């Protein structure tokens, strides 16, 4: 007997979607030869942002926990890569393996105080943790203090390799988000988000699920941070451990649609491409435009662009069918 593609309630089973994501990723990776060096670089950056956004989305969209501490994990990953590469001479596989591990461990450690907090308190707590880490690294001479660190150029991958790695990381992140959206784990995580008490009443170990989402988010963010380190080569605590990463991840998810797999992809495209590329020359104006966009979206499309677009496309389809 063949395994049906869909669950009895009509949702896709996991494997077709994951297979599709893997196929697309393979396609994207195969296209690297056809891309110019600039496109490779831009896409790498975008894919790194996509990883961060999906990590944030898993925690916030499916777990209901809004984090402003992305920099603690992403920055942790970046520092982990740079320190390992420059001090131990470890190669790419080892350093990029260690980055998500560090992110996961950091999340595990922070979960003890943070996961007791709810709502705004959790959000502020993550911010405090990230800021404390930044303040500490400023004084940590071994990690370069305020000067920051550089990854040895000789040991860093070239543009095409970085792009392939970013494709891999993005596949992992989108796959993880897809898995969270469609698996039993994600289903229970969403149940905990919607009504913690009722979920506990149905036998779901709520704390464990929140923890899992937090650790998954930390690991993916750490991986993204490691890639960013290889791409940026040189970084310092002000940028790498500042709140900018959290804000961008939040922005991309809110703009695209929190709690959907495609939302962060759309959000990454819009926020990164439109704002940092098209408006690059108009710094202060781009701030104003960014702010306006955010306010307008939460005011008029609080679900984000993607759900709005699918709903619109859906009604359009129905109308077309009727007229046909």
């Amino acid at each position, binding site marked *: 007997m063949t395994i049906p593609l869909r669950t009895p309630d009509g949702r896709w089973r996991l494997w077709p979607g994951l297979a599709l994501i893997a196929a697309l990723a393979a396609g994207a990776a195969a296209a690297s030869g056809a891309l110019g060096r600039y496109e490779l670089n831009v896409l790498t950056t975008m894919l790194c942002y996509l990883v961060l956004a999906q990590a944030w989305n898993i925690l916030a969209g499916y777990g209901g926990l*809004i984090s402003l501490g992305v920099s603690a994990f992403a920055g942790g990953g970046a520092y982990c890569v740079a320190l390992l590469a420059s001090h131990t001479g470890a190669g790419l596989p080892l350093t990029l393996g260690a980055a998500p591990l560090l992110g996961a461990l950091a999340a595990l450690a922070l979960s003890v*105080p*943070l996961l*007791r*907090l709810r709502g*705004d*308190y959790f*959000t*502020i*707590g993550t*911010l*405090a*943790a990230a*800021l*404390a880490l930044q*303040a*500490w690294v*400023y*004084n940590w001479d071994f990690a370069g203090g305020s000067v920051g660190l550089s990854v040895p150029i000789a040991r860093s991958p070239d543009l095409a390799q970085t792009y392939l790695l970013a494709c891999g990381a993005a596949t992992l992140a989108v796959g993880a988000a897809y898995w969270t959206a469609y698996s039993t784990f994600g289903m229970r995580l969403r149940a905990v988000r919607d009504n913690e008490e009722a979920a506990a009443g149905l036998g779901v170990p709520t704390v464990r699920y929140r923890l899992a989402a937090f650790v998954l988010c930390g690991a993916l963010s750490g991986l993204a941070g490691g890639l960013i380190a290889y791409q940026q080569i040189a970084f310092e605590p002000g940028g790498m451990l500042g*709140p900018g990463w959290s*804000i961008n991840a*939040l922005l991309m998810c*809110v703009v695209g649609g929190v709690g959907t797999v495609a939302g962060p992809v759309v959000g990454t495209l819009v926020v990164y491409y439109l704002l940092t590329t098209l408006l690059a020359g108009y*710094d*202060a*104006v*781009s*701030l*104003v*435009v*960014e*702010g*306006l*966009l*955010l*306010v307008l979206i*939460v*005011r008029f499309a*609080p679900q984000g662009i993607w759900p709005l677009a699918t709903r619109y496309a859906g009604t359009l389809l129905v109308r077309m069918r009727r007229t046909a």
Partner: protein
Amino acid sequence: MSAAVVLNGILLGGLYGMSAMGLSLVFGVLRLVNMAHGAMLVLGAYLAVLITAGTPLPLPVAGACAVLLAGGLGYVLQRHLLTAMLVRGANGPLVATFGLSLIASGLVALRFGSDPVSIPTALGTAGWSLWGLDVRAAYAVSFALAGVVAVALHLTLSRTRLGAAVRAAAADPRTADLIGIDVRTLYALVFAVASALAALAGLLVGVAFSVSPQSGTSYLLIAMAVVVLGGIGNVLGTFAGAILLGVVQTLAAAQFGGGYRDLVVYILFFVVLAVLPRGLFGRRLT
């Protein structure tokens, strides 16, 4: 040496308290983490500079105008944008206030560029001797003002009928509405007062130090730490938390070197939040 350091920390705490008062009020009453608080603070200072430059008004009058303008802006924003989102819940308002802060800092940068602005007045450079210790007049004045504002806010909230209405609207807006309290106007009023206080804090920061379009974030973070230390919506607690933060900051700087100042502050912030999420000085406003 430590007496001078502690006194300086206490007085500096006054300035921090001023910066945090509005954030605490909005968090306590509206349950809203106002990410635009820092931007409003910066806007207050720039508005004062703009008014002084564009009109013949003397600085104190211009400052008062800036504070009032900020209050009016806050009223309009809350009334026509944020309340509807608050009613809907979720994280809309937080993101919206963040968007507002981007707009505000973008506009300030467009109009003034990125150079720091310092509000020129004798207060910024005057100094007094208290108990044989030299202190800055700007700190002492900020401390006194913050103390007066904290006590006045506390008394208003705890002793007057308006304050009771605010507390009622914070605790249970539906019932408050039912017994004849105009909750939307009250919310807008609270946000207006908070914005005006932020602008006043911005003026004091501009007088004591200087302000640039980017300073909003650092004062927002300081204010958040103060609010968490002091207990959300507890104005006297906010004042006390600010003093504590000021003292801890200056002591940390004196003890470990200035580089460790932020580290100690954020660790304190984090630990208090993790251990005593309701703050060191007790309950919420309600």
